[in-house]
């Protein structure tokens, strides 16, 4: 075993001295991680995620006071950055991608509403802003659904008031112009016409009914408590973001490249004849490959620790519920990765073949193992295939610890799989290396 450590130390010294390799294996992943952190993470860099959604509001016949209140309300919500526009301008803004969506209220909506005319609220969506436009549609849809519910109840309770609105409609013309004071002054005007009086009575009835209905609806018979996939209890204080997923998944992705590069070293040493010289030395051959394995594991440990540490420091990524769960996941991920790529290196004859094979394997296993999409979101076929690659279990463990704040008991299965895979792969590389030495395959 001492010889294995000697070989490992030698490889590690060489890796540490190779500044270019350090740049490729640590600095570049770090830079990319920072990019992802800035894109999704927030942390010390402030606000995260999707910024306020630019929306154009088209409501040409809505009174000025209501427009102002609508705009203020949307701005204050923090979700929207609204701009007022006529329909032509809104169309241009959406088509040019200046706003994610336009909310188009119908012509003279208040009068149409009180006249019981059909009303269509439109959302024009930007094809390049599917997510943001979808959020606008969802929020507007919820509002419209509430209006529809109120309408259905009103019709069922006061069909006469609902049906006679049309007959009194003339009295509404011009009544709803201006702000609340203007409307009130108009209604209280002693010189008003009979139609206006009827309109006044109608509006009072409407108001009474709507208030009664709103009060009744507030005391809903059944509530719906929704538990979404966020930590509960104490963990609710913790912010989560897409970066909680991207940081470990990309760290594992880069780890695979780094460990694969380490495995290529075996072929490089063979080409330089240094491997053959090591084999000529006294003692068994296995410490050579175990040394390579230890060096790869150590390299992976440094890489993952640096990436996750930077993520925690700069982007406040959760490092798990206790100090030992995440380190155990890191160690088992590195041992499995080192075993896997060394086994690949021992199965092929040339460095170039290994190079292509490793890149193909990394990309495909990255896809089915959850490095590009969260493991929980993989379609069944991918999740099924993913179970046969080590990175699936690594990603699953990381997502449970970082995203779900779960301890060792919560990730027992993936940890056992990683530990089992590490052990089996270590045995495989020992058997393959010794067999190749005996056959003279490294000569």
């Amino acid at each position: 075993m001492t010889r294995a450590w000697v070989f490992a130390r030698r490889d590690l010294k060489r890796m540490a001295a190779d500044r270019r390799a350090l740049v490729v294996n640590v600095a570049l992943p770090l830079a990319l991680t920072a990019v992802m952190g800035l894109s999704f993470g927030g942390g010390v860099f402030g606000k995260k995620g999707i910024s306020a959604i630019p929306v154009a509001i088209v409501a040409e016949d809505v009174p000025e006071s209501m427009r102002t209140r609508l705009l203020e309300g949307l701005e204050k919500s923090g979700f929207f950055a609204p701009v007022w526009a006529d329909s032509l301008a809104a169309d241009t803004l959406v088509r040019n991608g200046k706003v994610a969506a336009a909310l188009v209220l119908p012509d003279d909506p208040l009068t149409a509403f009180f006249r019981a005319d059909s009303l269509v609220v439109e959302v024009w969506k930007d094809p390049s802003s599917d997510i943001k436009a979808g959020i606008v549609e969802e929020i507007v849809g919820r509002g419209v659904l509430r209006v529809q519910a109120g309408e259905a109840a009103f019709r069922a309770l006061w069909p006469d008031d609902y049906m006679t609105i049309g007959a009194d409609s003339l009295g509404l013309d011009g009544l709803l112009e201006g702000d609340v004071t203007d409307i009130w002054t108009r209604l209280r005007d002693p010189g008003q016409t009979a139609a206006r009086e009827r309109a006044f009575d109608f509006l009072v009835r409407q108001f009474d009914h709507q208030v009664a209905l709103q009060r009744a609806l507030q005391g809903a018979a059944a509530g719906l408590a929704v538990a979404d996939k966020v930590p509960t209890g104490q963990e609710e204080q913790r912010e989560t973001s897409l970066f909680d997923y991207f940081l470990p998944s990309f760290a594992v992705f880069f780890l695979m490249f780094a460990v694969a590069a380490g495995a290529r070293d075996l072929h490089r040493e063979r080409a330089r004849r240094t491997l053959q010289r090591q084999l000529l030395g006294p003692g068994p051959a296995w410490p050579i490959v175990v040394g390579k394995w230890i060096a790869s594991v150590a390299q992976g440990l440094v890489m993952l620790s640096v990436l996750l540490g930077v993520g925690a420091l700069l982007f406040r990524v959760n490092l798990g519920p206790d100090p030992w769960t995440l380190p155990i996941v890191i160690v088992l991920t590195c041992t499995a990765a080192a075993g896997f790529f060394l086994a690949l290196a021992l199965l092929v004859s040339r460095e170039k073949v290994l190079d292509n094979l490793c890149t193909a394997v990394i990309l495909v296993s990255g896809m089915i193992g959850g490095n590009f999409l969260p493991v929980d979101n993989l379609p069944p076929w991918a999740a099924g295939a993913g179970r046969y690659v080590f990175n699936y279990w690594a990603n699953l463990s990381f997502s449970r610890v970082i995203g779900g704040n779960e301890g060792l008991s919560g990730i027992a299965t993936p940890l056992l799989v990683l530990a089992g895979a590490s052990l089996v792969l270590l045995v495989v590389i020992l058997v393959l290396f010794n067999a190749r030495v005996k056959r003279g395959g490294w000569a």
Partner: protein
Amino acid sequence: MNLQVVGAMVRLRLLRTVRDRGGLVWLIVMPMVFSYMMGMLMGDWSNGTPPKRRVTVFDQDRGPAVERLLAPLRAHERFEVVVVDSAATDARARALTDNGSATAVLRIPAGFSAAMAGGAKVDLQLTVDGNRLSSQTARSVIDRSLLRMNTEQAARSLVAAPGTEPARDGAAAFDEKAFAASWDQPRVRLRASTLGRLQTQDWGLTRSAQHVGPAYVLFFMLMFMMVSAKDLVQERHDRTLARLVISRAGAVDLVAGYFLGGMAVGLVQGAILLGMNALAFGLDYGDSPAALVAVVVLFAAFASSASILLGTLARTGPQADGLGSGLTMALGAIGGLWWPLEVVPSFMQAIGKALPTGQAITVFHGLVGRGWGLAETLPMLAGLALWFVAVFALAAARLRRQVSA
């Protein structure tokens, strides 16, 4: 400039690329596999109708209101409702959702039907996974169904008792038919439409067919160019460049040969990949072939120049390889080839759109989604041209210096 030498270099580059079977895998096969698999992962390009997602209902009420609540969910083509006559803890519901056994878990307590008949209020528990579209849809369907029942119950509470005069804000009766008719055919409706070339409801660039296809064509064009920078490093080490200069080639010929050779490979790769995406996955690149050609040519020119620059900067092949892969990934991630730029904060969008990858994918989005032509894409094409000129100038200067040294 010796056109014969330049032509020979371009021809040789193409020949070498075609003859390298391993390289061909990276040139054509892997990009297509990657596009297809990412498309599958992101939800479309799958054949046939999607499988039904299970909504598990733990029903402790077993009353008539439960069936009314679940009716829309049962009628929904995307869901299969499984009712269990027992209770479940929060942890069990969460576990069922997390392990994929159910897309959503609804727990209905005893007393739900009584509450709907005017009894004490109850709370239903719905466990979902907001990251899944099917889970969100199940939530919307349940939410809507419960809203209908709550509204009806609330409205009925305003009806005066039989034989009594309704209060000023009360009602004499509740017209069930009018309620159902108004609910099914509401007077106030929402109409959502996508503006642009393809005015269909379900179209969007986060759909893999429209975003992933062009994005991975650009990504692999750049990747192939960048990792082939190691060939230039190798030729520098082998003194091939020096030997070429001693023969008939001047420094300008070498710069032109390397640049045009890389560009030819990039253009062939881009054309094949775009064509295969169109044929295999029915991708559509808009109505402006001129803008499409312009963006592909400018991107290939940029990628070829960047490859030469990297080849002159890197000291060893593995260094060029590592830096090339890393830079491609960085440019892909920041420029919006991995995820649409709309999901990142505005300052990252601004940075992304300033990069050549961001400019190229924005042109594709404009062509496909908005029906843009040359005029509308001109700012991005000019940006790409600027990148190309800057990187080419640097690359040419370095290569000439190294060749002359």
